[in-house]
């Protein structure tokens, strides 16, 4: 790892100012992607701005209609949180299935969403539940937030402070892990709320997390596995690599969608 300047601000304002003052600053939360990348010399930020000591960055807030989760809340905290388990069990289960225990106790929801790894799990939940990304500057709807692999609507000096998830009447996530990395090769989050269904897919798409309109329409008509039988996933839109070609991933998307529907009940 190259030398870098480490900051640990105690307010969002200080964090933003440290970030804007840096030549090439990066926000550090759990560091589960950033630090390995730096160790491999694939990233060399001049400054790291650690946001974990900022008050209010950790925890779950329930306002009755939505759960707001602080950006520095770890996956393990989300997985074990009683409120999340009661109100959005699908989200708790997703968090409990990310990486391994070491990753889950360090990695954070804000870090995962900001990084927008095409095989990460959280983006599927954020998009599938139609969540809102709350930043140091504004609120961004999930549909406007994810802009393709490792790309988001975030500006350079903008920090995610929380994610607000509207409650859903049914919500579940099913993923097929890559045999090597155990990242999602296809992860599908389905959510039904007020008769409308959202289906978000991670891991499989050639351009990162996406919504599948055909499946959403089919499930809005009838929320059942068989409703998906006649939907199509375009293999040409899928990633193709040594772990599986587009046809296989397209198949996995459909199978995982069905399994998510079955779990959501």
């Amino acid at each position, binding site marked *: 790892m190259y030398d870098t300047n480490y900051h640990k601000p105690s307010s969002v304002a200080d964090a933003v100012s440290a970030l804007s003052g840096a030549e090439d600053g990066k926000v550090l939360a759990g560091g589960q992607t950033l630090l390995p990348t730096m160790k491999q010399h694939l990233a060399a930020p001049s400054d790291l701005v650690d946001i974990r000591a900022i008050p209010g960055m950790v925890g779950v807030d329930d306002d009755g209609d939505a759960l707001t989760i602080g950006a520095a809340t770890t996956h393990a905290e989300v997985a074990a949180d009683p409120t999340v388990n009661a109100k959005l069990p699908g989200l708790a289960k997703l968090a409990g299935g990310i990486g391994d225990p070491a990753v889950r106790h360090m990695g954070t929801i804000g870090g995962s969403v900001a990084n927008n790894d095409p095989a990460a799990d959280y983006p599927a939940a954020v998009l599938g539940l139609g969540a809102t990304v709350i930043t140091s500057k504004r609120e961004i709807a999930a549909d406007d937030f994810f802009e393709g692999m490792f790309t988001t609507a975030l500006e350079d000096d903008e920090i995610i402070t929380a994610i607000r998830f509207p409650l859903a009447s049914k919500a579940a996530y099913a993923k*097929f892990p890559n045999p090597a990395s155990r990242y999602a090769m296809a992860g599908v989050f389905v959510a039904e709320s007020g008769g409308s269904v959202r289906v978000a897919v991670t891991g499989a798409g050639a351009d990162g997390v996406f919504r599948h309109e055909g499946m959403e329409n089919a499930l809005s008509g009838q929320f059942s596995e068989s409703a998906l039988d006649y939907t199509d996933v375009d293999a040409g839109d899928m990633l193709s690599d*040594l772990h*599986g*070609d587009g046809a*296989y991933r397209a198949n996995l998307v459909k199978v995982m969608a069905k399994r998510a529907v079955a779990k959501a009940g």
Partner: protein
Amino acid sequence: MSDGIGARVKRKEDKRFITGKGKYTDDIRTENQAYAAFVRCPVAHAKINGINADAALAMEGVIAIHTGPEMKEDGIGDMITGWAITSKDGSPMNCGVWNPMVTTYGRYVGDAIAIVVAETQAQARAAAEAVELDYEELPATVFTGDALNDGAAQVHENVPGNMIYDWEIGDEAKANAGLANAHHVTELEMVNNRLSPNPMEPRSAVAIYDEAEDHYTLYTTSQNPHVARLVLSAFYNVAPEHKLRVIAPDVGGGFGSKIYIYPEEITCLWASMKTGRSVKWTSDRTEAFLTDAHGRDHVTKATMGFDADGRIVAFKTDTIANIGAYVSLFATVTPTYLHGTLLSGCYDMPAIYGNVKAVHTNTAPVDAYRGAGRPEATYTIERMMETAAREMGMDPAELRRKNFINEFPYQTEVILQYDSGDYHKLLDMAQKEADVAGFEARKAEAASRGKLRGIGYSTFVEACGLAPSAAVGSLGSAVGLWESAEVRVNPVGTIEILTGSHSHGQSHQTTFAQLAADRFGVPIDNVQVIHGDTDKVQFGMGTYGSRSGPVGMSAIMKALDKVEAKAKKIAAHTLEASEDDLVIENGEVKVAGTDKKMAWHEIGLAAYIAHNLPEGMEPGLKETAFFDPVNFSFPSGALICEVEVDPDTGVTEIVKFTAVDDFGTIINPMVVEGQVHGGVTQGIGQAMLEGVVHDESGQLLTASYMDYAMPRADDVPSYTLDHNSTPSPLNPLGIKGCGEAGAIGSPPAVINAITDAIGNNDLDMPATPSKVWAALQAVKPAMAAE
């Protein structure tokens, strides 16, 4: 005797390993420690015009940067191979020159070009990145099956057509005649996938040059430190043997990959002399994927003929074996004498012919990896047996029984003579323990849950206990494959066993000590096993080829015999009894039928005090022995794998894996079971998960665990293991070796089970979910459309 032969003694080494107190090469710290990093070839084939190290040399902490041409100028020798193979036309093999660091051409991604020595590891690595490389990229040959094609890029100018040798074994005319008259002929093309060895501890070296003494010390991750010293001295001209000490301290796994002497160790020794500093290099994981010798990588076409009764009449194989860019130490023997000689499997085959063409490609060197040649032979044979049974409508177990060798010793058509075995018993036991009788009911139950169940067999024999020195010498080996041991009894009766075998996970500290505990009835805590240091142990050939049991322990047994004989002489003299009347029991030497006895420690004391020894006897109680086996040993086994495939995703779950092995005499059943667990897990890894993948240009796509799938605990079942031992008549213990059997036998059992489940035999390893799903679609076009 609770600590003796056959006892489940808990491992003496576990306390230090489990509590993180092991001492590995990277743990060695010296006073003037400097660190090395290598500048490596970024493409698969390039002409290196030179480097510009000005910026790198100016960086903080950088001590020196040296290149291959400088090494050559200093007289450091080229890398060597330990086994000369002769082609079928009588011509010697033809291999490219391997300089420890590139002199002109980089021939694979990762080929070492320059060494950077700096004050810290981080500084060395940063400076290595800052070295500018002037190179011209050249066309590369990447894939095994392409190497012999017309127009394939030449890896070495002096190896036309990339062909290292075109070797044969057996009788081609006889095999052809057998096939021509066969009632049924089975043909299959198979890929034995290329594997990365992945020991837990990556390779590491600490090289220390002492200018005042003109002496070198090398700490290194080696399975055979004496062979390393021999090669470094005799061929690489680093230093003469008496001025070079090689120490392989705790080593965290090898699987073959740490047999070889790599460019990095040699270069660190040389760099230590150049810089006057102790030079440490430790591979990171991606460097390990790039530069550790890979395993397997065969493409094979096999043909097997049967008579109307299902008896094999002839077997023929045609193999291309990828050796990589350079010929590593034992790379040439693995696809030939460790593969072709096993083509008879455990079957009575009247005619066999094997052809192996070894080729250079622009990839990392390929050498022996757990099993080395024998897994390749076993995979070919056992897939053929299963395929033939299906084609002929026979039960695969019955087809095997019909062809099993029944009498021993058995002379195969391909050089080897098997020592002992009972293949029927192994298969009978395995079928019973796997509850083969209940399979159809389990299959129907699985089908009711939408799952496809399959069952697959592998009955195998392998050659261990490498190897009779004269025999391997006549086949081209540059070294003899005996082993040495020294047993030292201290004046207080405690015992030290010095062995040329090397433990890097094999539990020698425990099992070797059991031999002395068993012999003299002393507590195992009173026995210490010493290995891995050329200054302590006189010589040794190291650990590989499941040789530490049949060869290494045999040497210890011979030394124990000598110690026992001398101890009895001392006791007989002291007790005024005849040696013939003496018995050793519970740590005492007794005169049978009397109450006269000496405690073991009293004999030790008597030997060293030497006040009252038999006339002419030298003081002391310490004996050395060398054991050179008269033949290989031949462990065998019957494995049955049962799988359940999810047709929606292609995911295969191994629901039961049964292994019944014949390892001859077992010293410690717990340790042997551990070896089988590890071996079978590696075999399942090869069958379902692992595979080195390059892109067309030769870049390694599987350069980290993000893409190279290693088996995890939840990928494998709880194994059902059993043994039926037919002791080898060829060594003092009757031991056959168990280190590789699991990895040798298991891959075909897994693939045979999966192909049975999905009803498509067109499946290569690793049978990943995506490949299994695709194979299912190929036989179920109607399902694929939906």
